[in-house]
C-alpha cells in the first residue's frame, strides 16, 4: 500500500523538457479555476445582465469614448514617433524631447474641459517646460539613456 502511494507521488523529470513542467501545471490550474469562476460567477452575472439588473463591464457602461480612444491613439503615436525621431538623432535624447512636447500639449488640450485663454497658455508653457526640464535633468545632468 505504502509503496503504491510513493510510486504515485514519485516524479522523474527529463531535463530537456523541464522548462514545460511548471507551465503545464499552471495551465491546468488556470483552466480549472476558470471553469469554476465561469460556473459560480460569470454565468450568474450574465443571467443578471439578461434580467437587466447588472450591466456588462466596458461595453455596457457609460464612457468618454473621445478621451479614452484619443488617449490610446495618442500614446501609440507617441511611442512610435519617439523611436522614429530618436533614430534620426541617436544618443541625444532628441526623440524624447521633440516628440514629448507636442504629445504633452495635445493630451493637455484633449483633457481640458473649458478652453479659456489662460488655461491654454498654461498648457503650452507646460508642454515646453516639462519635457525640456525632464530632458535636461535626466539626459544631460544624469546622462540617462533616452530615445
Amino acid at each position: 500500500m505504502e509503496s503504491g502511494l510513493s510510486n504515485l507521488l514519485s516524479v522523474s523529470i527529463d531535463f530537456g523538457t523541464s522548462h514545460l513542467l511548471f507551465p503545464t501545471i499552471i495551465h491546468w490550474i488556470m483552466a480549472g479555476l476558470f471553469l469554476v469562476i465561469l460556473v459560480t460567477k460569470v454565468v450568474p452575472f450574465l443571467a443578471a445582465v439578461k434580467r437587466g439588473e447588472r450591466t456588462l463591464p466596458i461595453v455596457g457602461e457609460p464612457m468618454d469614448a473621445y478621451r479614452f480612444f484619443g488617449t490610446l491613439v495618442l500614446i501609440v503615436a507617441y511611442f512610435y514617433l519617439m523611436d522614429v525621431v530618436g533614430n534620426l538623432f541617436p544618443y541625444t535624447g532628441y526623440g524624447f524631447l521633440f516628440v514629448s512636447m507636442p504629445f504633452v500639449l495635445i493630451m493637455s488640450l484633449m483633457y481640458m474641459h473649458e478652453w479659456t485663454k489662460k488655461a491654454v497658455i498654461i498648457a503650452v508653457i507646460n508642454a515646453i517646460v516639462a519635457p525640456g526640464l525632464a530632458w535636461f535633468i535626466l539626459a544631460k545632468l544624469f546622462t540617462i539613456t533616452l530615445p
Partner: protein
Amino acid sequence: MEFLSLLDVTFFLLAGFGALIGIIFGAIPGMTATMAVAVCLPLTYALGLHHGLALLLGLYVGGISGGMVPAVLLNIPGTPSSITTTFDGYPMARKGEGEKALRVCVIASVIGGLISAAVLFLFAPMLADFSIKFSYVEKFLIILLALSVIASLSSSMLVGIFSGVIGIWLSLIGDYSISDGGNGKTRLMADFMEPYLFEGFSLLPVLIGIFGISTILLEAEKGVKSELSHERVKFGKGSGFSLGLFKGRLTNLVRSSFIGTFVGMLPGVGGSAASVLAYTQEKNLARDSSQMGKGAPQGLIASESANNALTGGALIPLLSLGIPGDSTTAVLIGAFTLQGIQVGPLFIPENANTWYIMMTALVFANVVMFFLMFFAIKHIAKVVMVPKHILYPIIVMMCVVGAYAINYGIMFDVWTLLIFGILGYLIQKVGLEVAPLIIGFILGSQAEVYFVKSLESFGTLSIFFTKSPIAVVLWLLILASVAFSIAMSLKNRKRDREEQIG
C-alpha cells in the same frame, strides 16, 4: 556605527525631497504612493544605492501620508488607504475644523510610521535569520503561503487565486533561465516574439504600465473630470488643535499602529484593509464610539496611524524573505534589483550598512513628513487643485523615461508599458484583482525554480510534506488561511441572507 560615515547632506535632502514629492502625489486623488515611486524611478538610475534608497523610502512614506489631505478636505481618499479618514475627517472639515483634523492625522501618521519602523528593525533580522536555513522546498511553500494569504483576503478567494495564477503565468513567458539552473529553452510564446521576449517581460515596465498607464486609461474613460466641482477647500479659522486631543487615545494609537504593521506584513493586502480593520476595531472596542463617523478625532487616529504603519510592516517580508508586502514594495523590489541588490534572507546579514541606512531613511522620512505636513499643510493642500490635464501628460512622459532607461534603451520596454497598461485596465474592469496578479508575477519564476529543483533532487512530491517540521508548519498556515477565507465567505453569505429576509 560604520554606516554613519556613509550619510551625507545629499542623503537627507533626497529623503526629504522624496517625502515632499510623495505627499504631493498622495494628495492628488487618483495618484498613489505606488505611482509616485514608479514615476520617480528614473531619478534613482543615476543615484548610488544609498541615495536612491533615501529618495524611494521618502516617496513611499510621503505617498501614504499625503492621502489624508483630500480625504479630509474633499471627502475623496487620495490613496485607497485613507478611505476611513474621510469618515471623520470630512465632517470635521465641514464644521470648519479642517486644519485641526489634518494635524490630528499628521501626528497619528508619524507615530504609526515610527512604531512600524521599530517593529521592522527588530523583527526583520530575526525573520531573515530564521529563513536563512530554508531549502528550495520551504522557499516554494513560503511563496505558496504568500499567494494563499493574498487570495484569502481578496474580496473573493477564487478571483484572488485566479488573478495570482495569471500573474504566475505571465512571469513564465520567456526562457527557463540557465542561470537559475534551467535548460534555457523558451515557452509560452511564438518564434517571432523571441528577440523581444527571450528573457520575458521586464519587471519595472510591467509595474509602471499597470500602475501608471492603466490609471490614466481608467481616468480617460471617465472623461478626466475635475472632482473639485468649484468647492472651496475648507480650512477653518485658527487650527483649534491641541495635543489634548490625544488624551486617552494612546491605546487606540498603539493598537491601530500594530494592526497596520501586521496587515502590512501580509503580502498583497492593500492599505485599505489596514485602516478599515483599525477603524472597526476602534469602533468595537472604544468606550464611546457614538461620535465616530460624525467627526471624531479618534476615527482619524485609528485610520491614519494604521495606514502609515503599513510602510514598516510591508518592508518586513520584502527584506527578510524577498516577498513584497504591497504594491509599492513590489515596485521597490524592482528598484533594488536595478541597484544590484537581491532582497531575501541574506540581504540584512550581508548588507548591514545598507540595512541601517534604510532604517535611517525611513525614520528621517517620517520626521520630514511630520514637519512638512504639520507646518506647511495649508500650502500643500493647494496641490489638490492642480488640474489633471496638466499632470497626466507629464506622468505618461515620466513612465516612458522609467521604462526606456531601465535596460539602457530598449524600445520594447516602452511598448510593454502600453501592453500592461491596457491589460491592467481590462483586469480592473472585469473585476480581477491587481495586487495578487503583481505578486504572482514577481514570485512566479522563483516558484518555478524552487518547485522543479526540489522535484529534480528528491524525485517525489511527498518531499513537500516531509522535508522538515517547518514545511509542516507552513502547510498548516496555508490550510489556516484557506479555512479563514471559507469561514469569512460563509459569514458574509449568512449576513446577506439575513439582510434579504430582514
